[in-house]
């Protein structure tokens, strides 16, 4: 009788809060997906001629690409700059980046008019003078790089040793290629907004927009690795031993130090951009105050908190700061693509996403979380494979 009780108690329930909420979002997302592809964009979105790009570009693309920068940042830090002590962070970062970029492409398919023509810019009509062509090309190539960097994980799971060893040998060239491609497309996403000097508010518009986007992507990548690592260590703690938990603390401290320096530099670059525009008087307007909220509350404050947390080895403070920084990057992308965009239009003509657009964005994120959980609970991401060890 006690054995039967033990067997009953050990069977996990599928109706966990995460599963229930994720299930609802997925069902709603599938419903809106059918609507979008049968009735068109107009039936599902609030996009119009003034706002051809809305939440799906502002959040799913701009924020998705920035927050997936942890892959190239961690890879460069470990394999190119030689910080091997953060080696354990590479696989989760690569997985997050791979899923992030995959979902960026999925979200893009919702936004473009004819998604089956996504390969056309590469094989039918390359628009080589277009910044967006360069973004598309680099994202496509980087997605292939990320997939190749990710392959050792499923190959170890499938125990395909020879192929896995070959893919591991490609790590350094793939990392170099990843850094080059990421530098190009992260900055080019900012360069897209160079086209709209009269639509983007002068405090956010700058000829340094590509530099801002690139540097903020480094900040976003470092912070997302801390954020994702903290969540993984909380929810998948059963996979990790004492050494992994100690490495996790060292990772948070090391990445926080780097993020503090990067944010310090980013704030300086933003100040130089402000000076170059000579729009100091606009700081006292409502948009100016909002700009100061972004600058002081989501760049300077995280910089200081990261520095303070690193100095005092205050892990909870660093985890909070990582979340604050991630929110700040999202806010920056929202400001440029939605809030400070078309700032001169009256309120009645401004854009706000429909509930269906928000549903699809939540749907895309939920798919990412489900895929992340599926892979992490089955494959050697957080812990080395017993047969292969930590040899990558």
């Amino acid at each position: 009788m006690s054995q039967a009780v033990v067997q009953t108690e050990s069977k996990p329930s599928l109706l966990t809060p995460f599963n229930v909420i994720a299930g609802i979002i997925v069902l709603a997302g599938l419903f809106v997906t059918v609507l979008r592809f049968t009735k068109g964009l107009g039936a599902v979105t609030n996009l119009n001629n003034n706002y051809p790009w809305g939440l799906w570009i502002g959040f799913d693309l701009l924020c998705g690409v920035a927050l997936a920068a942890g892959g190239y940042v961690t890879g460069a830090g470990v394999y190119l700059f030689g910080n091997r002590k953060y080696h354990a962070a590479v696989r989760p970062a690569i997985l997050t980046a791979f899923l992030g970029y995959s979902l960026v492409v999925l979200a893009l398919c919702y936004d473009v008019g004819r998604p089956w023509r996504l390969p056309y810019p590469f094989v039918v009509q390359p628009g080589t003078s277009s910044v967006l062509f360069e973004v598309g090309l680099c994202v496509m190539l980087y997605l292939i790089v990320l997939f190749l960097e990710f392959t050792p994980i499923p190959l170890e799971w499938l125990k395909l040793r020879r192929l896995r060893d070959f893919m591991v040998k490609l790590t350094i060239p793939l990392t170099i290629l990843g850094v080059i491609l990421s530098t190009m497309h992260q900055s080019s996403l900012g360069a897209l907004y160079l086209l709209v000097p009269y639509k983007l508010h002068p405090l956010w518009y700058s000829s340094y927009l590509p530099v801002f986007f690139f540097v903020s992507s480094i900040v976003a990548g470092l912070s997302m690795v801390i954020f994702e690592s903290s969540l993984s260590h909380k929810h998948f703690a059963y996979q990790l031993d004492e050494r992994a938990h100690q490495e996790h603390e060292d990772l948070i401290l090391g990445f926080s130090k780097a993020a503090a320096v990067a944010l310090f530099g980013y704030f300086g670059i933003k100040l130089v951009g402000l000076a170059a525009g000579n729009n100091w008087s606009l700081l006292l307007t409502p948009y100016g105050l909002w700009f100061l909220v972004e600058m002081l509350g989501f760049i300077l404050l995280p910089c200081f908190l990261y520095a303070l947390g690193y100095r005092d080895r205050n892990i909870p403070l660093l985890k909070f700061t990582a979340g604050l920084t991630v929110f700040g990057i999202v806010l920056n992308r929202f400001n440029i693509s939605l809030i400070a965009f078309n700032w001169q239009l009256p309120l009645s003509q401004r854009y706000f996403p429909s509930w269906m657009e928000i549903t699809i964005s939540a749907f895309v994120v939920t798919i990412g979380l489900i895929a992340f959980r599926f892979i992490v609970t089955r494959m050697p991401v957080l812990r080395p494979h017993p047969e292969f060890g930590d040899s990558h």
Partner: protein
Amino acid sequence: MLFQAIHTLQEFVTTTKAVSYLIAVAYLIAFPFFWRFLTAREKK
């Protein structure tokens, strides 16, 4: 310089470049202090 009216492109560029360089120099001076604040309690 900051509060005088700017009439020509040259005046605009001179003003903005001057402020940008001042910010850059201020940053170069501030960075070592920031670095010392950041690494003050690091174990040698």
